[in-house]
């Protein structure tokens, strides 16, 4: 290749990348999905699952007959003295309805020689109410404790839900921008005969594909910074490991999903086909790959499969870096799993790509 040609080729790559940038930032929709959506999601989920002071359990005391009213009042008084219990007196019908709809977690009924509890053992808050209420009532009625326990209370950053969530959102973001951003853009270009038009010029096909990956890599820091900064400022979610490891992990993930986007769009003639494919592929990963809750909740039998999914590997690597402070060597295996997907999809995409 002569010098002139090499310079021309550089110019072509720069122009292709520039065009991608322009198309990206002039499309308000793509800006939102890339930058706004992860922020909104982290705000909403962060608030929903923020660490609250332990809430009192809600309990009803039921008055079955008028002559039991005095006993019921007595129980209410005992319970009301405890900070851990919120208590109401209700008729049996009201109490049953409240229990059924979850407004109260337990119903206390005075019985001849004590109290009866009505509760639903499948509801965690009912189980909690059962044990707290029993404790308070027993003590109120004169039970002596065997000893006075001491306890120390820990809420450490790193073990909260938001610490778990943020790396998952980073992974999710990398997956959706890669798949949707690239897959959809390519399918649309093909529908509009733009790929055909480009192929009619001396443009190198490799430059064209490269420009997609290049822009993906260049946008990555811009895309991650707001979410990480937000998580750090608002929720105090930090990065334990090095930013270099985090950056490399995110880059491997971004490129893998970008290449998968290329692959899903490599033959499709219209964007609907591509969006169908992407939905089919990404939906299981939303659920199983540990974005919102740990993938270890699934049965052991499917764990090997889940572990091989690219998003699972990426999320594991991101969490290891951000929460546990893992180094590059520690996450290399996970990154390898992810990159393998990328390489396989890349080879297939190049082989199958429909240019005309």
């Amino acid at each position, binding site marked *: 290749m002569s010098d*002139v*040609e090499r310079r*021309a080729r550089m*110019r*072509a790559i*720069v*122009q*292709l990348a*520039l*065009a991608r940038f*322009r*198309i990206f930032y*002039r*499309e308000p929709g793509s800006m939102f999905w890339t930058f706004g959506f992860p922020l909104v999601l982290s705000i909403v989920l962060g608030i929903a699952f923020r660490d609250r002071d332990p809430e009192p359990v809600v309990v009803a005391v039921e008055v079955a007959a008028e002559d039991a009213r005095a006993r019921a009042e007595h129980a209410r008084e005992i319970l009301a003295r405890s900070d851990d219990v919120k208590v109401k007196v209700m008729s049996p019908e009201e109490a049953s309805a409240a229990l059924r709809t979850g407004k109260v977690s337990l119903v206390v009924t005075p019985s001849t020689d004590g109290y009866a509890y009505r509760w639903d053992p499948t509801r965690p808050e009912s189980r909690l109410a059962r044990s707290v209420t029993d404790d308070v009532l027993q003590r109120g009625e004169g039970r002596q404790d065997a000893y006075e326990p001491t306890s120390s209370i820990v809420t450490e950053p790193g073990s909260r839900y938001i610490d778990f969530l943020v790396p998952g959102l980073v992974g999710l973001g990398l997956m959706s921008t890669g798949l949707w951003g690239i897959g959809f853009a390519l399918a649309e270009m093909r529908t*509009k*005969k*733009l790929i*055909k*038009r*480009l*192929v*009619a*010029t*001396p*443009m190198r096909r490799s430059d064209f594909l490269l420009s997609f990956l290049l822009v993906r890599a260049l946008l990555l820091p811009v895309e991650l910074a707001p979410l990480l900064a937000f998580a750090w400022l608002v929720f105090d979610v930090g990065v334990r490991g090095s930013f270099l490891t985090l950056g490399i992990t995110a880059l491997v993930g971004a490129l893998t999903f970008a290449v998968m986007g290329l692959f899903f769009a490599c033959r499709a003639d219209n964007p609907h086909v591509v969006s169908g494919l992407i939905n089919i592929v990404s939906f299981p990963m939303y659920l199983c790959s540990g974005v919102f809750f740990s993938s270890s909740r699934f049965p052991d039998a499917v764990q090997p499969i889940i572990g091989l999914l690219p998003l699972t590997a990426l999320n594991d690597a991101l969490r290891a870096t951000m929460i546990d402070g893992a180094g590059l060597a520690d996450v290399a295996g996970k990154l390898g799993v992810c990159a393998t997907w990328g390489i396989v999809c890349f080879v297939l995409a190049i082989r199958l790509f429909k240019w*005309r």
Partner: protein
Amino acid sequence: MALEHAATAPGRSEALRASRGAPEVSIRCKGLRKTYEDGVVAVDGLDLEVRRGECFGLLGPNGAGKTTTVEILEGLLEPSGGEVEILGRRWETDERWLRERIGVSLQETHLPDKLTVRETLELFRSFFVEGRDIDATIDLVALREKEHAKFDTLSGGQRQRLAVACALVGDPTLLFLDEPTTGLDPQSRRMLWDVVLAFKEQGGSVLLTTHYMDEAERLCDRVGVIDHGKTIAVGTPKELIDSLGGSQIVEIEVARPPAEEAARDALAASLARLPGVVSSRFHGGRFVLTVDQLHVALPAVLEALRARNLELANLSTHRATLEDVFVTLTGRALRE
């Protein structure tokens, strides 16, 4: 001033290059065939030759196979059979070399919505090792005012002009234009004609398809009429019109034409025997006569109708055009 002009005049270098050592024939194809996957035979043994420096027009009704032919010649479609030679080379062996030297405007392309005119041209220019100056190209297609307008804000005509600009920006020696002026207003059409004529003047060759006869007559040195994927006539517009044998067309509507086809054909045949009349057909509800001497033919025709007691409902005459050639050759109008 003169220097500046030379610097911005587009196409000069490539035209010079083209005239030196370039083959005499820009496009040659023989026995071209294309059968689509669904079995449609779009091109069926088509022969074509476009000489250097010539503008060749492909005419034909919708579905005749023009776009298919052009895209095969552009190296964008694989032919099912036949030989193609562009600028003396073949797509299989010299794709890169050829891509540097041809300019393409597809029948329909949607350029990126969010790129401006200038950005789009810069993008296309960047693919070519040598090409035209962006500003000169913008001026050439009169898009200076829209230089910074995004594609999705352009009118249909402006988009079409940008598409042609993208074809020119690589400074090609051979230009393919598939229906470049369809849907344009008269002014934009004339502007594009000037662009094509200027390109030709600088030594470039053009293959264009069109449905407009005036366009073909104005721009094309030669035209090929194709139908059902075959060339059915080739020549200069004048040669084709002359092949009708007469320079005037007379169209006659009678109030009550004979009901049976045989009677109509017989009447047409007897009209054809009148002095000054070259041929005659019944087509589209009227008799269409090709006439070489209008002053002789017209009185004779009127006399013949009166003799048969046929009342004249309408009569018109015009100079023969390529449209008439097409109707004569295929029995169908060019634009259906």
